[in-house]
């Protein structure tokens, strides 16, 4: 960006004004497109989130966001910077089923982001969905492509924590089969869940005292 204003024919003021005008026009254009696409984008995001939550918490049809704010967990619609959230899942009758907890951590290649369903009453993981990963195609990406692996996260005990073992050697309720050839990725998923779980377990209210579903948050959008 060499503006090279040596041959100072136009005045500095004109230069500044040109830039300001360009900025003004561009700002208007951008705000225009932003405002017009915002509803769709927000709706897309919410739908995605809802689908993911429903997937990791089987039998859930309604959800509500909880935010860890001021050292307590409160039901809130908005999410400020540096705040963390979990999603409570409720069945058709509004009965609490479990939490969908997002977690992230280093994987084989890059950060893995995931969401898992968790029921505090039974200390079970109900389901797991990978939201974001750059794991090796064909190997590491089995953490979300391999139905067996994803399926093994249903009714999985997380007491005291999940352990990934070599394929075909599961014997305990808290053990799952690691993917052959993608042990690192499998273990990364397990580690992220364990870590997120241990982070949140202190913050969640004692089992049975979950806040009820607010009526206005019915569809979670």
């Amino acid at each position, binding site marked *: *960006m060499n503006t090279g204003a040596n041959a100072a024919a136009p005045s500095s003021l004109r230069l500044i004004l040109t830039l300001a005008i360009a900025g003004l026009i561009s*700002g208007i254009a*951008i705000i225009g497109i932003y405002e017009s696409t915002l509803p769709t984008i927000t709706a897309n995001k919410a739908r995605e989130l809802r689908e993911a939550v429903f997937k990791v918490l089987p039998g859930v049809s309604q959800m509500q966001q909880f935010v860890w704010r001021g050292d307590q967990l409160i039901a809130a619609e908005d999410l400020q910077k540096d705040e963390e959230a979990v999603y409570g899942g409720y069945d058709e009758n509004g009965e609490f089923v479990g939490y969908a907890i997002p977690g992230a951590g*280093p*994987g*084989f290649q890059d950060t893995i982001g995931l969401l898992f369903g968790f029921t505090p009453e039974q200390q079970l993981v109900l389901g797991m969905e990978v939201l974001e990963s750059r794991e090796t195609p064909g190997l590491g990406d089995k953490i979300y492509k391999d139905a067996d692996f994803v399926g093994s996260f249903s009714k999985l005990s997380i007491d005291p924590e999940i352990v990934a073992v070599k394929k075909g050697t599961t014997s305990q309720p808290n053990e799952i089969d690691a993917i052959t050839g993608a042990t690192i990725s499998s*273990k990364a998923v397990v580690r992220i869940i364990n870590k997120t779980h241990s982070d949140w377990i202190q913050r969640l209210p004692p089992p049975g005292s979950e806040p009820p579903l607010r009526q206005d948050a019915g569809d979670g959008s």
Partner: protein
Amino acid sequence: MDNLTWIFISALLVNNFVLTYFLGLCPFLGVSNSLETSARLGLATTFVMLVTAVCAWVLNTYVLIHAPYLRLICFIVVIASTVQFIEMLIRKLSPALFRAMGIFLPLITTNCAILGLAIFATNRGYGFVEGIVYALGAGIGFTLALVLLAGLREESELSDIPALIKGTAMNLIIAGILSMAFMGFAGLFSSA
């Protein structure tokens, strides 16, 4: 492993900006013909990346929180202007330093690695210190890749590379091989 260390190693080796994210390819392929130039370019890039990290953090914290949709345009304008300002400053204050790395600064500013750094750092929600470490890792990683390629290219100048493949095609293939070798770093320090 400590989070900061992981950020650093990840940007440096595992997710090397050039070799796995394909960022900053233009200087990577263009300026890597001599070792000395590429070392200086690497240095200058690392410097600009640090400046970028600071700018990005300031923008994210104070401006973009009100207007997230201006992210891209703010990044590019602010970073470019800041670097240009610094370039002029260096030129005035230390002609020697300017000759050593300053002449590369305008070249780097509009480089996608710089913008990429700002965007990635924002996407991952890095704080100030994390951002600096990330920039440092990315910059040194860029320098490392650049210097390795320059060394290989200088050496291959002495080889009988067939005329058909000489030039960009060969550079790309060398880059591909380097990228293949860097795959060995995958997962480094992530499991510990």
